[in-house]
């Protein structure tokens, strides 16, 4: 009998596991995939290491900072700042036709860029920052307000509105077209007010530290152990049945599988409402280059691009929509002296439709991956230097890859649009953490695991 069974060995499940094991609970993390990390995982292909998910750790604050989610999670998990090995970004940009706004880990650069390119909007942007300060986390009506509406009320130039929204949607909006103002504030802070960083070794460094700590505290991790069913007796979860039929018992269950995905496992529910699931999914074209990006004039860490004045954040009807995308170069972080990645790497994400990708035959799937890799890169070189002649290896991940790592419906990267901030479900001892509890990104997911573990799993 476990005190707590945690479903999913992603960032949130591992963080929750550390908290509970630290306070002497018998904890078991069950992971369906053959590796840990969930959305933020890694793999090896033809002798090279690749990250899934991680472009950047957002919410970056420098060592010694006492406030903000990063400082908070380090304290809660008893890590030192250096354990995450974070190197700050060099600098990023939002690129629309004919206009580029640079930004970095200090809001002053972004403000100066706006003042230079949208001189009439300088004071409006200050007013937007004030709206963020005034935003009340504890007031649900504030959260649900339309982010677009707040922008309409504060920023006069429609182009600037779209440019501000573009990175915020890309890095954390589960809903289509608009985003709740609460999510807008969370994303704005994590991207523009705090900022980007990355460990030299990528996401595996963070995962390795999390899993080591979890195991050292006596926590148990079982890979290839998908949960088929959550057993329910008298309104309480009593345990789980694994895909292979084995049963495990627990006093409570904490699931990072997603709201709909978790409800569907509960044997007391005959159907879970699939309509509530998210459907924003991505493809990513990964190019390994024979030189560092800075050698051909690409010095940006992340470039969010969009090829018209209107930013369309919708699931495409086709396999992909490459009108907007994100170009990430893991080379362009300020690593320590003499440190760096051996190859140049560019990762380019675009919007994608899970059902279309999942419906392809194996041969078609291979072909479409090649076809969309070309289209996506072609779209991106309108905004970053053309790097196609330097490519020495490529890979492409699709919504079905994301599904395999996360088990999210529709390969929905940020989960469902409707969040469960209190982490509760219809069962008194079944709780949610991870993207459907509300926080996204690596730091957000870890904070989610900590918050739900503290609130529901520690106090009895």
């Amino acid at each position: 009998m476990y005190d707590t069974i945690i479903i999913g060995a992603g960032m949130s499940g591992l963080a929750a596991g550390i908290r509970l094991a630290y306070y002497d609970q018998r904890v078991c993390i069950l992971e369906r995939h053959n590796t840990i990390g969930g959305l933020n995982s890694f793999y090896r292909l033809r002798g090279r290491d690749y990250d899934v998910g991680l472009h950047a750790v957002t919410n970056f604050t420098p060592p010694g900072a006492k406030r903000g989610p990063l400082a908070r999670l380090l304290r809660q998990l008893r890590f030192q700042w250096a354990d995450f090995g974070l190197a700050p970004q060099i600098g990023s940009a939002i690129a629309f036709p004919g206009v580029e706004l640079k930004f970095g880990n200090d809001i002053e650069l972004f403000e100066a860029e706006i003042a230079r390119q949208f001189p009439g909007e300088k004071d409006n942007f200050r007013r937007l920052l004030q709206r963020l300060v005034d935003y009340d986390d504890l007031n649900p009506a504030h959260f649900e307000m339309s982010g677009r509406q707040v922008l309409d009320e504060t920023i006069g130039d429609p182009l600037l509105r779209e440019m501000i929204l573009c990175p915020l949607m890309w890095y954390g909006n589960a809903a289509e077209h608009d985003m709740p103002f609460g999510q807008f504030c969370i994303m704005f802070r994590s991207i523009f007010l705090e900022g980007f960083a990355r460990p030299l070794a990528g996401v595996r460094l963070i995962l390795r530290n999390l899993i080591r700590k979890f195991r050292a505290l006596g926590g148990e991790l079982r890979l290839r152990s998908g949960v088929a069913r959550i057993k329910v007796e008298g309104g309480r979860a009593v345990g789980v049945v694994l895909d292979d039929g084995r049963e495990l018992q627990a006093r409570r269950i904490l699931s990072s599988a997603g709201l709909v995905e978790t409800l569907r496992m509960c044997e007391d529910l005959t159907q879970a409402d699939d309509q509530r699931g998210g459907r924003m999914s991505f493809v990513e074209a990964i190019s390994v280059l024979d030189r560092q990006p800075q050698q051909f004039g690409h010095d940006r860490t992340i470039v969010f691009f969009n090829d018209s004045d209107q930013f369309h954040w919708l699931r495409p009807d086709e396999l992909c929509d490459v009108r907007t995308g994100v170009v990430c170069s893991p080379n362009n972080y300020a690593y320590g002296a003499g440190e760096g990645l051996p190859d140049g790497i560019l990762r380019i994400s675009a919007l994608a439709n899970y059902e279309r990708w999942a419906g392809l035959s194996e041969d078609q799937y291979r072909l479409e991956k090649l076809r969309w890799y070309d289209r996506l890169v072609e779209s991106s070189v309108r905004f970053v230097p053309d790097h196609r002649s330097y490519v020495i290896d490529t890979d492409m991940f699709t919504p079905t890859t994301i599904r395999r790592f996360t088990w999210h419906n529709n390969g929905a990267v940020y989960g469902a649009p409707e969040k469960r901030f209190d982490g509760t479900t219809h069962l008194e001892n079944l709780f949610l953490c991870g993207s459907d509890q509300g926080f996204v990104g690596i730091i957000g997911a870890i904070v989610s695991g900590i918050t739900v573990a503290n609130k529901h799993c520690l106090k009895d």
Partner: protein
Amino acid sequence: MTPAEIRTEIISILEDIAPDEDLTSLQDDVPFREQIELDSMDFLDIVMELRKRHRVQVPEADYAQLASMASTVKYLEPLMKGA
């Protein structure tokens, strides 16, 4: 435990929870929150560490008693007498 021993133990817990804080100049009669950066998660950890290290249970209704060092020591003294 004597009040002095309890105080030492609380300092040790705070060092664990907030390793970056300088606790040498901590004033006992001033609330923790006014001197060091502690949020509600950190307060939960004080409670949890007491339970882990000394099997002392602090019910949620009594969390307010842990506002300052002086009030914490006073609150814990009868609970940790035999410890």
